[in-house]
């Protein structure tokens, strides 16, 4: 291991999206040395793609809003499987985190009174999403990036972590390779924060980029940490469906927040036909009331059914398609152009509020959304499950290893509300950075075991081994097959036999992935990178499938054809996945600690 460059930091942050950047800024503010590593260039992480906004009970638009209502909404949206402490901290701290972004230069859209503007989103009782048109994620990441680069953080771009290293129970470092030259870098650290994002590349139709291969979840799992609730994968109801090459690209919920309506091919607003019981008292029963809600002209008006939670809207669209009422390319119609019947200058209004949607449809589908409806259908979007963390500190079950953002689990329970991710990133990014710095200060040096390093190196170089047989399509082919498999058998609607057969097939793909050959050399070689990422995708796919088998009910984002109802027996359990002594993945269920009375009251008062 003599030839490896070794870099030392007190705290090492893996991932430079909203969560990683916020963690790095905080750790640095605590006075420890910080390294920040990302697979892409700085500023390109997934966070940049977030559109609709960031949820925080600022109460700028509706003064009735409060952290308590935000908390209750988040818990209800998550079907009460959430880590309630996280849901509480999140609701309480999100407003400060938004204002802090403003102090660092973010320029949110404004209300008439000059405050930060907030918009409606599914499952939120009041207009709550601070936003900048439909490019809120760009505003967030650029603000954190431009502030972060002046905080003395060492940034290592295009550098992929392939293994975590341990000293006894605790983590002590990580091995990475640079994308440009394929050189190894050994990071020594007293504490590590994982902020690597999601797993969306496990599916064929997805709004996620190549980066979303479950790296953080896998790194944590392999080092002995627990994952929880992996069965809960969010399928966003509105992805593009046509043309084929753009299938899955997200259409922000902001379209519905601004008054967009869903229709089937018979021109029916089908969402009115199926309003779940626990949302009936808060949902409009006619289009006029819905419109008054959207335009905030009637404070008593209830929200239109298009703004029900994502899991529900996605299932309704799927039902319309399956029952033959879908749009020509197998989706539903999403119409924002209709608001011209209601307001003057509708065209300019749409372009102002939804500029990137306008641009995206115009450029990619040749559709003018100010004139015609869009065709939309469900797309894999977000994973609620992930690394199990302590609600207060964000530490995983492995000492010194922290997680924040999409790769961590707990806040969202069985279903995430739109806008609750961007706020999650900064609230828990900050807490993770703070506690990781504290851990680093309280715990001395750990030592790196050279054997672990050589094993990790050998594993990373495996796919380049010229002794391996070259097969057509290489790692890409295996990835396609996995994506097809997950989409078909562990997708939006699931069945026992199908999930079980998916688990068997994943086993076969794992075998192939372990011997796949990547042609070419170590220099910027995406074939090699894909072969390594694939190993992670297989681990998280297996976790999703194993968790999905044992939750024998339908709840939130997890829908079982063979168990179509919610079951009380599963109403207070999390699914836990960990590596067993024999190296196999174990899935068990654990009871969620009971809610303290004061939090229960907050929920009961708002039922």
């Amino acid at each position, binding site marked *: 291991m003599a030839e490896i460059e070794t870099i030392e930091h007190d705290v090492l942050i893996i991932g430079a999206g909203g969560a990683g950047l916020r963690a790095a800024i905080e750790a640095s503010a605590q006075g420890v040395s910080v390294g920040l590593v990302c697979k*892409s*260039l*700085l*500023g*390109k*992480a997934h966070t*940049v*793609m977030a559109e609709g906004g960031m949820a925080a009970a600022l109460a700028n638009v509706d003064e009735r809003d409060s952290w308590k209502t935000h908390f209750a909404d988040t818990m209800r949206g998550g079907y009460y499987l959430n880590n309630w402490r996280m849901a509480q901290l999140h609701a309480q701290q999100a407003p400060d985190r938004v*204002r*802090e972004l*403003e*102090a*660092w*230069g973010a*320029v949110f*859209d*404004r209300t008439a*009174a*000059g*405050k930060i*503007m907030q918009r409606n989103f599914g499952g939120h009782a009041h207009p709550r999403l601070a936003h*900048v*048109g439909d*490019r809120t994620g*760009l*505003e967030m990441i*650029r603000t954190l990036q*431009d*502030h972060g*680069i002046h905080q003395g953080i060492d940034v290592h*771009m295009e550098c992929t972590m392939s293994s975590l290293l341990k000293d006894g129970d605790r983590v002590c470092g990580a091995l990475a390779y640079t994308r*440009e030259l394929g050189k190894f870098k050994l990071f020594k650290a007293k504490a590590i924060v994982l902020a690597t994002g999601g797993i969306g590349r496990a599916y064929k139709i997805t709004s996620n*980029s*190549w*980066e979303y291969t479950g790296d953080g979840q896998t790194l944590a799992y392999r080092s002995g940490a627990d994952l929880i609730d992996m069965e809960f994968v969010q399928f966003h109801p509105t992805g593009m469906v*046509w*043309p*084929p*090459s*753009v299938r899955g*690209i997200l259409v922000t919920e902001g379209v519905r927040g601004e008054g967009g309506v869903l229709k089937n091919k018979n021109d029916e607003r089908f969402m009115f036909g199926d309003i779940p019981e626990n949302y009936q008292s808060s949902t409009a029963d006619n289009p006029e009331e819905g419109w008054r809600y959207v335009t905030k002209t009637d404070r008593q008006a209830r929200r239109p059914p298009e703004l029900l939670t994502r899991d529900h809207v996605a299932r309704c669209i799927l039902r319309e398609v399956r029952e033959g009422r879908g749009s020509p390319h197998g989706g539903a119609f999403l119409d924002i152009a209709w608001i011209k019947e209601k307001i003057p200058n509708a065209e300019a209004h749409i372009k102002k509020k939804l500029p*990137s949607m306008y641009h*995206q449809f115009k*450029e*990619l*589908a040749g559709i003018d959304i100010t004139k015609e409806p869009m065709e939309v259908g469900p797309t894999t979007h977000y994973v609620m499950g992930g690394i199990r963390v302590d609600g207060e500190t964000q530490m995983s079950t492995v000492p010194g290893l922290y997680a924040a953002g999409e790769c961590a689990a707990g806040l969202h329970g069985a279903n995430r509300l739109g806008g609750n991710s961007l706020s999650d990133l900064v609230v828990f990014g900050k807490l993770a950075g703070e506690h990781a710095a504290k851990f680093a200060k309280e715990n001395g040096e750990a030592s790196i075991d050279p054997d672990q390093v050589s094993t990790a190196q050998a594993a990373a170089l495996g796919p380049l081994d010229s002794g391996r047989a070259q097969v057509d*399509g*290489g790692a*890409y*082919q295996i990835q*396609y097959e996995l994506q097809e498999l997950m989409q078909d058998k562990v997708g939006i609607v699931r069945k026992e036999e199908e999930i079980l057969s998916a688990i068997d097939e994943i086993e076969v793909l794992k075998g192939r992935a372990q011997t796949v050959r*990547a*042609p*070419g*050399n170590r*220099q*910027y*070689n*995406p*074939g090699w990178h894909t072969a390594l990422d694939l190993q992670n995708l297989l681990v998280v796919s297996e976790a999703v499938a194993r968790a999905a088998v044992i939750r024998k009910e339908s709840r939130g984002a997890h829908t079982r054809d063979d168990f179509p109802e919610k079951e009380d027996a599963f109403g207070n359990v999390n699914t836990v996945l960990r590596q067993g002594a024999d190296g196999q993945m174990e899935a068990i269920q654990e009871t969620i600690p009971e809610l303290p009375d004061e939090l229960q009251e907050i929920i009961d008062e708002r039922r």
Partner: protein
Amino acid sequence: MANTTFKVWRGDKDSGEFQEFQTEVSDGMVVLDAVHQIQAESANDLAVRWNCKAGKCGSCSAEINGMPKLMCMTRLSDFDLEEPVTIEPMRAFPPVKDLVADVSYNYRVKQNIKPFKPRQPDNEDGSWNMAQKDVERVQEFRKCIECFLCQDVCHVLRDHHKHDEFIGPRYFVYNAALEMHPLDQEDRVPDLKKSNGIGYCNITKCCTKVCPENITITDNAIIPLKERVVDRYYDPIKMVLHKIMGPKKKSD
């Protein structure tokens, strides 16, 4: 569905050449789809950057038939597919491999621009009041996805290689976003004149033409900044005022 020929530049920092690939083009495909297809079918190690595939991250910049564009937002139906489509990396930056260019210069430039420095908050909760109409100008600049296509076409960088003396259009946009931010109190005018080399820009507007975010780089960012420099350094009355009143003067 026809087979189309793509000429893709392959090479590294030392040398390279165009290599021909054939792949099938289907409905609605963009250039990035073709590159991915080629990568999966016949060149697993073809290097390319991308993330969002929706024009939001600014990773996939390249020169397509000689035009600087985002590969993910360029539809193949815009081209005559009887002719080969050429794809090469941005040429104003050193090549790394295949379609990937070394854009690290841009990150170094940004590091040297003075960061945001807000005035005291207006409200007790640490927030400020700003009218929508006062932030709109800055919001235009903040749309920038850092694709660096404007840097790629600017002749000061591309042809005259003034990387050490000139920050390029992207960073005038960045400066403008800071300078025109209603809360900012920093003074960047001396840097604009000296280390940022704003004088090299002769307003050819090539940068504005390629910006995928349609930011009016020249008219809205560069020219107003040039005016601030002129006001400060070449207008005798304002120079005196500046000496008496202190460095920062927000013109609005």
